[in-house]
C-alpha cells in the first residue's frame, strides 16, 4: 500500500515560489497499476520523485508498506562517470545483493555487451533506458516507479520490458507515468490525471485518457 495525503511540493526559482505538485492525495493497493497522465510540466516527474523519496514534500505525507523502486527515468539512479560495471557493483553493495547475480541479469536483459565497461555517460538514450530498467528489475521491488523510460527504447526493448514487467511480474505494483495510451489501456486500472500540479483520480481509464487528451 502506498498512500499520499495532501502532498505538495514547491520550488523556489529565481526568487519566485513555484508549486509543482499541489495537494495531491491518492492510494495504491498492492498489485495495482496506476497510470499518471499529464502534459510536460504537469508535475508527473516531481510526483514520482516524491514517491521514491528522492525529494521530500514541502507539506503532506507519503506512507508506504512495501519496497518501492527508485524512479526509473533516463537520469538518476546511476553515476555517469562510472562504468556500467562499477554502477552495478555500487547498487549490489547498497541493496545487499550478489554482484554476479545482478551482472548476469543486466547482461542478459540490457544487451549492452562491452559497453558495460564504459562510463554510463557515453551511453545513448536507449542504452541508458535498458541499463536503468535492467538494474531495477535485478533488485526486485514490490512496486516500480516508472517515468516514461519504456518509450525511450527500441521495439525489442519495449517488447522485453513488457514481458518482464507486465507478464512475469504481473503481481507487482506499478506507478507509471506515460504518454503511451495503448500500454495504459491494456494494463492500468486507474489513472491520476495531472494538470498544473493538481491531480484527479479516475477509475475509468478511457475517461481518464479522454480528459487528458482534452487538456
Amino acid at each position, binding site marked *: 500500500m502506498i498512500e499520499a495525503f495532501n502532498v505538495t511540493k514547491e520550488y523556489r526559482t529565481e526568487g519566485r515560489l513555484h508549486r509543482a505538485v499541489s495537494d495531491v492525495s491518492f492510494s495504491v493497493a498492492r498489485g495495482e497499476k496506476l497510470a499518471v497522465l499529464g502534459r510536460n510540466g504537469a508535475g508527473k516527474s516531481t510526483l514520482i*520523485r516524491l514517491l*521514491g523519496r528522492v525529494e521530500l514534500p514541502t507539506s503532506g505525507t507519503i506512507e508506504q508498506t512495501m519496497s518501492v523502486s527508485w524512479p526509473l527515468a533516463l537520469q*538518476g*539512479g546511476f553515476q555517469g562517470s562510472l562504468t556500467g560495471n562499477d554502477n552495478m557493483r555500487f547498487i549490489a*553493495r547498497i541493496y545487499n545483493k550478489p554482484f554476479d547475480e545482478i551482472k548476469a541479469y543486466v547482461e542478459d536483459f540490457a544487451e549492452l555487451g562491452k559497453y558495460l565497461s564504459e562510463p554510463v555517460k557515453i551511453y545513448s538514450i536507449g542504452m541508458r533506458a535498458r541499463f536503468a530498467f535492467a538494474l531495477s528489475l535485478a533488485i526486485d521491488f514490490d512496486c516500480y516507479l516508472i517515468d516514461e523510460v519504456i518509450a525511450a527504447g527500441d521495439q525489442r526493448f519495449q517488447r522485453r520490458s513488457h514481458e518482464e514487467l507486465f507478464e512475469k511480474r504481473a503481481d507487482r505494483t506499478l506507478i507509471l507515468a506515460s504518454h503511451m495510451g495503448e500500454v495504459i489501456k491494456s494494463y492500468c486500472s486507474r489513472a491520476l490525471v495531472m494538470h498544473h500540479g493538481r491531480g484527479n483520480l479516475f477509475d475509468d481509464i478511457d475517461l481518464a485518457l479522454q480528459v487528458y487528451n482534452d487538456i
Partner: protein
Amino acid sequence: MGDFRKNLATQWRVVGALLIREIYTRFGREGLGFGWILLEPLIFAIPVLLVWSVVRAPYEHGVALMPFLWSGYLPLLLFRHIGARMLLFVRVNAGLLYHRQVTIFDIFLARCLLEVASNLAAVVASFALFYALGWVDLPRDLPMFYLGYFYMIWWAAAVGLIIGGLSERSDWVEKIWQPYSYLYIFFSGFFVMAAWLPEHLRGWALFQPSLQAYEMIRAGMFGNAVKTYGDPAYTSLVLAVLTYLGLLLMRESRKYVVAE
C-alpha cells in the same frame, strides 16, 4: 535492539559502498588510482614544509621549527580539504539519493572518512620520511598527540557539516570559504602557541577549538619542554554543540534537495 543492529549494519554497508565509489570517481581506476589518496596531500605538504624550514629560523621561542611546522601543517590541510569537499555536497550528490537507503549523513561520512584516511596516511608517511632524515622526533607524549589530532579531525568534520549545510542555502558561503580557508592559517593557531600570546589575548584565543587542539598536539609533540593550555572538556563541549548545529543544518538542507 535487533533492529538497531540491522540498521547499523545497513549503514556501514552503504557508507562502505559510497567510500569505494568516491575513490573510483575521484582517483580513477587506472594508473596510481588508490595510491593518490596518500600522494595527494603529500605532494602538497612536503614542498611547503621544506620551503618554510628554509626561510624561517630553526628555533622559535625555544621550539624546534620542523616538528612545529610538521605537526601544524597537516591538520591545517585536513581542515581545508574537508571544508572544500563539503561545499555544496548535498547538491552535487543528489543523484545518490535515488537509493533510499543512502542518506546525506552517509555521504557526509564517506567523504569525511576518505579525507581523514588520506590525511592520516600522509601524516604517517611524512613522519617516516622526516624521522629518517632526523628532522622530527617521536612525539614525547603519544596519547596526548593522538588526542589533539582527534580533536582536529572532529573540528574539521563539525565545520564541514556546517559549511556543507550553509552552502546549500546561500551562494555566499562558497565564495567566502575560499579566502577564509587561507586566512584560517592565521586564526587556527598554527603559527602561535597560547603561551606566546599576551595574557589578555590568550583567554580569547583559547575559545577557538582549533587552538585548543593545537595546544594538545604540541603538548604531545614537545612534552614538558613547552607550556600548553589545552582543555579537552571545553573542546569536547564546543565541538559537540557545533556538530549538533551542523546536523540540524544538514537535515534542513535535505528538504531542499532538487534531484537531476
